[in-house]
C-alpha cells in the first residue's frame, strides 16, 4: 500500500491554553514495499504522524491517502472501513508489551484476529495465531503460558505477534527496539527484515538508532518540530551530517569512520551499510598490498 500525506497538520488540545502543534505541513510519500525509516528528536511529531496512518488520529487539515482509502478531512470513513484499514495497517506502539492483558499468550494474540475477522472459524484463528507466533520466533509451547510470565523480549514479540495476526500489508512500529539489550535489538531488526521480505510487506519504523536505520531502510524522513526537514535514501540523508547534528541527530558509525578517514586524507566513496563498508575496506587493503 502506498501512503501519501500532503500538508498534514495537527494540533493537540486545539483552542485551549495547552494547544500544541505536533505536525506542521507534513508532505511525505511512502511507496509500497518500502522499508521506511522515520527519525527525529523526541517530540518532533513522529508518533503523532504514524497514528494518522490507521485513523487513530483523524486528519485535521491536509490530505492523507492510504492505499486507495482517502482519510482526508471531510471524507467520512465508517466504522467498517476504519476496521478494515486497521487490519491492513498493523500498528505496534512503543513498549507494546504494556498492552498485554489476556490470561494466555494464545488469547492475547487471537484478540486482534477475533476483532477483525469475527466470522472466521476457530481453526482459521488457530492457524493465524500460531503462524504469527512462529513469525516472531516463538515456540508453540508459549501459547498456553501467561504473557506476564515471559521475559521482556518475549513479551514484546508476543505483542508484535498480536499485530501480525491479521496479516497486515503495512507494519508500522514506534521505536520497536527501545529498552531492549543489544542482542534483543539485533534479533528484532532481523525479524523486521524477515517480515519485510524484500518488499512483500511495507514496514514503517520510527527509530532513534541511526545504525539500525542505515542498515535496513531504503528511504528515510527526518522530522523536526512537526515538520519533515529531509527525505531521501539513507545515503542521501546521512550525507548531510552537519544539518543532522544541528537537529541533535546522530549519523551511523560507518559514516563517522568514513568522515574520520577523509580527515586523514583517506577519503573514499564508502558505503553506509556495514557489510558493504567492510567489503570496501577489505578491497582497499588488498589493493594496497598488491
Amino acid at each position, binding site marked *: 500500500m502506498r501512503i501519501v500525506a500532503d500538508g498534514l497538520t495537527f494540533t493537540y*488540545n486545539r483552542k485551549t*491554553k495547552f494547544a500544541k502543534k505536533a505536525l506542521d505541513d507534513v508532505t511525505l510519500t511512502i511507496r509500497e514495499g518500502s522499508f521506511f525509516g522515520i527519525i527525529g528528536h523526541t517530540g518532533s511529531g513522529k508518533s503523532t504522524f504514524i*497514528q494518522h496512518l*490507521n485513523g*487513530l488520529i483523524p486528519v485535521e487539515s491536509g490530505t492523507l491517502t492510504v492505499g486507495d482509502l482517502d482519510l482526508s478531512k471531510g471524507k467520512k470513513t465508517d*466504522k467498517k472501513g476504519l*476496521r478494515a484499514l*486497521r*487490519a491492513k495497517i*498493523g*500498528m505496534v*506502539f512503543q513498549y*507494546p508489551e*504494556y*498492552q*498485554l*492483558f*489476556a490470561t494466555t499468550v494464545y488469547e492475547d494474540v487471537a*484478540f*486482534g484476529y477475533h*476483532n*477483525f475477522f469475527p466470522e472466521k472459524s476457530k481453526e482459521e484463528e488457530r492457524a493465524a495465531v500460531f503462524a504469527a507466533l512462529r513469525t516472531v520466533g516463538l515456540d508453540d509451547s508459549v501459547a498456553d503460558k501467561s504473557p*506476564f510470565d515471559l521475559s521482556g523480549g518475549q513479551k514484546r514479540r508476543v505483542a508484535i505477534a*498480536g*499485530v501480525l495476526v*491479521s496479516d497486515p500489508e503495512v507494519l508500522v512500529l514506534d521505536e520497536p527496539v527501545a529498552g531492549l539489550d543489544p542482542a534483543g535489538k539485533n534479533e528484532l531488526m532481523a525479524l523486521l527484515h524477515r517480515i519485510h521480505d524484500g518488499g512483500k510487506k511495507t514496514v514503517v519504523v520510527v527509530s532513534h538508532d541511526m545504525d539500525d536505520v542505515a542498515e535496513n531502510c531504503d528511504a528515510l524522513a527526518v522530522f523536526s518540530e512537526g515538520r519533515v526537514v529531509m527525505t531521501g535514501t539513507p545515503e542521501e540523508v546521512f550525507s548531510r551530517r552537519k544539518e543532522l547534528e544541528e537537529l541533535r541527530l546522530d549519523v551511523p558509525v560507518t559514516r563517522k569512520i568514513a568522515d574520520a578517514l577523509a580527515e586523514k586524507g583517506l577519503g573514499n566513496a564508502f558505503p553506509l551499510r556495514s557489510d558493504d563498508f567492510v567489503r570496501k575496506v577489505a578491497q582497499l587493503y588488498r589493493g594496497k598490498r598488491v
Partner: protein
Amino acid sequence: MLSDMTFGQYYPSESPVHRMDPRAKLLLLIVYIVAVFLAKNFYGLAVCLIFLLLAIAFSRVPVRSVLKSVKGIVILILFTFVLNVLFYTPKEGDVVLFWRVTVQGLVSASFFALRIIFLVMGSSVLTLTTTPVSLTDGLESLLAPLALIRFPVHDLALIMSIALRMIPTLAEETDRIIRAQKARGADFESGNLVSRAKALVPVLVPLLVSAFRRANELGDAMDARCYAGSSKRTKYKKLKFSYRDLLALLVTGALLAGVILCNVYAYLLPVLY
C-alpha cells in the same frame, strides 16, 4: 479526549488567587460551602454567586473551564432535579401545571440544582488554581493538630498527593492503551452494556498492571532516598499566610454574613415566587 475527564485540572496562571496560601483557599472553600448550604432563598444564592464570580474573575481562569466541571455531573443534577420536582410536597395555593408538577416544585428543584452547581463550581475554582502538591500541603498543615491524637496526618497527605499526582499519568496511560487496543480492532463504542463492559477488560488489565509497576518503582525510589515520613522533615516550600489571604477570608466572612442576613430578613425582601 480523556484528559477532559480529569475535571478540575490545574490551570496555570499568575493570578492573585493562584498565589494565595492553599490553607486560606481551603478555609475559604469550606466557608463558601457552608454559606451555600445555609442559603434558604434565591437572595442568599445570589450573594454566593457574586462571590463565586468574583473568585473566578480574580483567578483569571476562563469561565469555560469552570463550567466544564459542571458538565461532568449534568446527569446527577438532572436526576436530582427530576426527583425533587416529583417528590415535592405541594402546599396550599400551589399552582399545579400537570400531574404532580407544580410551579413551586419546579422552583424549589431549581434551587437545589443551583446549589449543587455552585458547590461544584466553587470546588473547581480551588482545584483549577491550586496545584495538587500545594493543596495537600495546605491540607496537611490544616490537619496538623490531629497528629496530637496520633492521627497519621503526614502519611495521609502523602497518599493523597501521590494519588492526585497519578491521575493525569494514569489518564494518559489509559489513553495510550485504548489507542493501542483500537489499533488491534477493539471496539469500545458499539454493542450493549455487557459487551461494552467486556470490551474494557483489555484496557483495565494493562492499566492495573502498570499502576502496580509504577507503585513498586515509586516505593523503590523512595526507599533508595531513605524516605521516612518523620516529623523532622522540613518543607521545600514553606506556606505563608499573607495580608492577601486575610483579605480574602474577610470577604468570605462578609459572604457568610450576607447569606445569613438574607435568611433572617427574608420577610423584608420581595417574594420571588
